[in-house]
């Protein structure tokens, strides 16, 4: 069996009394890109919150390269090579661009091919270098998205989780972000991409998982999903 970069195993998670994930299982193969789709409230963001330790699951397991992390605090999970590009970007607004990158910087612990540094992040996002002394709050939405991605990369992750990186951005900027995601995938990073818009995901994902009201409705390769004659409209918004 191929190595799983990330595996959720029969995860049950609750917000208060609300049972938001009901026995969710899926796996992300090493070096692959998994598109996580579903309607609003289907549990996509919750899956990511469980993975990074913000919402400990009530039952089930989360394995990062085979190691159980489900009940570790977020900072410990970060140390094991998981990085998040959060929904709404959530850059540290009162820090400068450079400080946002600096606080996340960590040496690679697992011998990844190319180590991310200020230089390589600035090379990927030249805009960030131009604005490195500015407060993150003063950046445009697209620049904040670059910063959120750059911040995640500075920790030299093995698994990158991206939560709706296209949200609220102009179409041209969305295209730029997707180009970046493709580059990251080509660099060998294992990625989970959460999106509302299935078209964006079908273009670059290797595998697709579709959630419907807290359960996995579809888990297949992109090819099977696109050409397998599945009726996706019952799980996704009209598109």
């Amino acid at each position, binding site marked *: 069996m191929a190595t799983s970069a990330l595996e959720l195993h029969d995860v049950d998670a609750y917000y208060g009394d609300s049972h938001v994930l009901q026995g969710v299982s899926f796996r992300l193969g090493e070096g692959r890109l998994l598109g996580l789709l579903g309607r609003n409230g289907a549990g996509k963001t919750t899956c990511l919150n469980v993975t990074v330790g913000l919402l400990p699951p009530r039952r089930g397991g989360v394995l990062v390269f085979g190691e159980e992390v489900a009940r570790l605090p977020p900072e410990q999970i970060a140390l094991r090579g998981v990085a998040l590009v959060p929904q709404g970007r959530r850059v540290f607004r*009162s*820090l400068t661009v450079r*400080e946002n990158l600096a606080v996340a910087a960590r040496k690679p612990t697992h011998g990844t091919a190319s180590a991310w540094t200020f230089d390589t992040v600035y090379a990927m996002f030249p805009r960030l270098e131009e604005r490195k002394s500015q407060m993150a709050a003063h950046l445009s939405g697209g620049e904040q998205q670059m910063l959120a991605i750059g911040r995640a990369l500075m920790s030299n992750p093995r698994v990158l989780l991206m939560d709706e990186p296209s949200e609220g951005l102009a179409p041209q900027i969305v295209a730029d972000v997707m180009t970046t995601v493709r580059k990251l995938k080509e660099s060998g990073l294992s990625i989970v991409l959460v999106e509302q818009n299935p078209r964006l995901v079908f273009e670059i994902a290797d595998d697709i998982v579709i959630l419907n009201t807290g359960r996995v409705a579809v888990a297949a390769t992109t090819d099977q999903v696109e050409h397998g004659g599945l009726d996706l409209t019952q799980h996704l918004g009209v598109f």
Partner: protein
Amino acid sequence: MSLWLTLAVNSFALGGLLFLLSAGFSLIFGLMRIPNLMHGSFFMLGAYFGVTLLSQGVNFWLAALGSGLLTALLGGLIERFLLRRLEGQVLPQVLLTLGFAFIIGDVCLMIWTGDPWQPPTPAHLQGAVQVAGLFFPIYRLVILAVAVVIAVALWILVDWTRLGAMIRAGVDDPPIARVVGIRVSQLFTLVFSLGAALAAFAGVMGAPYLSVYPGLDFEMLPLALIVVILGGTGSLLGALVGSFIIGFLYNFGQAMFPDLAYVILFLPMLLVLVLRPQGLFGKVVA
């Protein structure tokens, strides 16, 4: 003529002490949003630790550092095991810290009795320097110098180091800071301990000048509050400027209008609260 100069020197010395006291209060209140009403108690307890060490023949600077460390340890334990359980709950935090202020006050009374302790000014800092025919007491100038050095050190720590950026990130967005790998909880304990240590250090620095006595805690606490409200919470520059304003108002107020000393102290605070609630150097929270 020389009365005014003496008052000015005293004002700078008191301002320096107030800065050491309120810088920690400002960090704890501004960054961690904890209204730490035992901050005056850290000052008094630190002063008592200091005079005890001094009476054992310990060097003055070692006594000040040792007292700072002991108080940091106590503050860290209270933050870690008690305040941490009340995260984000202002009223319980007020009650807990106020309760501790009373407990510390009573314990100090038991241990150090009700008599005032006034250690002598350290021998190497006694006397005065003469400049242009006027005498300046060395010790008060030393207090001012120490406050300025610590102000610069804190500014560098908070604004220019990675550790400072991590602390600010932890304030901006605690959950995401943790996801990024920042140990927010440990950093906040560190900030709280640092604030306690600074207050204690100030207590020892102030002891030869103010002496140490029961009730010193609740004399210093309102001064720290006024300084931080005047300067703006979380702003080190605000704490510095606020400290010197209050240092001057206190000394000149008491000399010129002794009956109105407290009016002169609290009136500017009221005006700032009404006209500029974020304080002189505070940022408006978006």
